[in-house]
């Protein structure tokens, strides 16, 4: 069965949890910028966590369904509806054949992840259905979804069918995950970081400035990275380093002193000094930053970064167990 993107929106792409294991060939992991949000949304509709969904940037999407599906979305502070019925983030809902789901104008944040029961069934490239927009493969022909385009959906799982039946009367599930899972966007967020290995290639003043000042998100930010305007971070040398691996979360300082916070579609290697690394737990908040937003940074230890990440994973396991119990 297919669903039709009546309006594709500003930038909507098929994403799953991305491709691991290909960095040695220069392939970045890609995938949903908030993998946790996509996993939660998938669990809510009865999918397996890595199923492919839609990453919606700034809304503008209207999608029409040709059969009954369970859907759920997580992300920024968007206005979303099934027909004229409002659908808040984190609630599973039944859409019936012929109905539209639309998502518009976020008040805070800029991205949302929509899971559809059965998942989006585009061809798998290198183990993933994610769209690599930079290299131009995966997802819908390696590019963003276009107006009027049809998306092939997978079969509803038994769990999704059970869920659809329980939602037949009420349409929208009353239960939802914790608020910061379904809506991670924050106004003027503080992102936690651990110190980078090349911090000594920047002046001591640069590290102080980084952790004390507010930075503005530049309009030239994208899925590769969030570019930041604000006080210039001085390096001790204009010379770049021998290229080595970088990762989502890495904060690089190019010669112009304007830091770049790398996201999933970043290059696999880089030669700019790595001043800091935003912790994995906080990357979903970074994924919601939009041009002109203010963002601050605060240092934590590596052990703290691991602690919060492992705690959330345990909570997600419990949540998964809860859903399984609920659908028995």
């Amino acid at each position, binding site marked *: 069965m297919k669903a039709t993107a009546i309006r594709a929106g500003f930038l909507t792409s098929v994403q799953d949890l991305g491709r*691991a*294991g*290909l*960095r*040695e*060939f*220069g*392939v970045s992991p890609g995938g949903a910028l908030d993998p946790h949000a996509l996993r939660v949304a998938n669990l809510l509709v009865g999918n397996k966590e890595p199923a492919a969904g839609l990453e919606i940037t700034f809304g503008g999407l209207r999608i029409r369904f040709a059969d009954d599906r369970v859907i759920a979305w997580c992300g920024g502070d968007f206005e979303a509806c099934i027909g004229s019925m409002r659908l808040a983030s984190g609630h599973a809902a039944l859409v019936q054949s012929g109905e539209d789901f639309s998502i518009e104008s976020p008040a805070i944040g800029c991205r949302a992840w929509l899971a559809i029961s059965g998942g989006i069934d585009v061809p798998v*490239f*290198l*183990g993933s259905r994610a769209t*690599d927009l*930079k*290299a*131009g*493969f*995966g997802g819908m022909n390696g590019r963003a979804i276009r107006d009027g385009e049809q998306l092939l959906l997978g079969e509803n799982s038994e769990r999704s069918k059970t869920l659809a039946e329980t939602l037949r009367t009420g349409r929208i599930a009353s239960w939802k995950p914790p608020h910061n899972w379904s809506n991670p966007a924050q106004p003027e967020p503080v992102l936690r970081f*651990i110190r980078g*290995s090349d911090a000594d290639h920047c002046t001591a003043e640069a590290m102080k400035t980084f952790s004390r000042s507010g930075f503005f998100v530049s309009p030239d930010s994208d899925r590769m990275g969030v570019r930041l305007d604000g006080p210039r971070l001085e390096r001790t040398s204009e010379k770049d380093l*021998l*290229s*080595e*691996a*970088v*990762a*989502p*979360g*890495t904060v690089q300082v190019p010669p112009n002193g304007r830091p770049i916070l790398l996201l999933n579609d970043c*290059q*696999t*290697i880089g030669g700019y000094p*790595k001043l800091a*690394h*935003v*912790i*994995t737990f906080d990357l979903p908040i970074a994924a919601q930053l939009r041009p002109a937003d203010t963002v601050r940074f605060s240092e934590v230890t*590596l*052990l703290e*970064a*691991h602690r919060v*990440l*492992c705690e959330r*994973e345990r909570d997600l396991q419990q949540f998964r167990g809860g859903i399984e119990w609920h659908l028995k």
Partner: protein
Amino acid sequence: MQITPLGDCAVLIRVAENFDEAPEQALQKVIAAHRRLGAAKIPGVIELAPAYTTIALFYDPVRAIDGGAPAENVPDWLEHKIREALAGSDSRGADYVKNSVVEIPICYDPEFGFDLDEVAQHAELSPNEVIDLYAAGNYRVHCVGFIGGFPFLGGLPSKLATPRRETPRKEIPAGSVGIGGKQTGIYPVKSPGGWNIIGRTPLRLFDPQKNPPGLLRAGDQVRFRAISREEFERSVT
């Protein structure tokens, strides 16, 4: 050997110093360490990414804990596992592994090698001398990155080293062979770039329909063979 965090889900392992003085030795150490770390199958490790003097090891702390790491201190446990895997490694001894040799045909037609004249001027050679000198080189892949499948090759004859162009081009065709400083490389797909382009290969260096998707990986030896425009056109798929 230095092990430093690259965020909370990766560490950077520096296995060699002084790349510029001894690039071959650095590469040999990196390749040997890459193999040993791969063979060690450390719980929670997702992938290894070699580049020049380092290997980045990506891991999932949750899976590491499931695999036996103490929940309160994954980093120390991981560092111990890495040092254990690399203990006693010797790039000249038992770890020496011969990497594959890949021959890459290049057509130096002026339409493809639009910067060949500039490289020749910089080297104070004729374009044909540049082609001969370039073909005589013995190259090795030090790193693949920048974009999928882009090989950074060491071994460029020093006379051919040419600074990157001041203004990068918006579009370099796929297969273009370039010189950027002391390195040479091939653009696997159409992309922007600042290297001096001297020719083009009909080979496809990156194909996401194949796994592995790249023709080359770190450690591979590369030899170039000059081909005519006719052979180029025949080989394009």
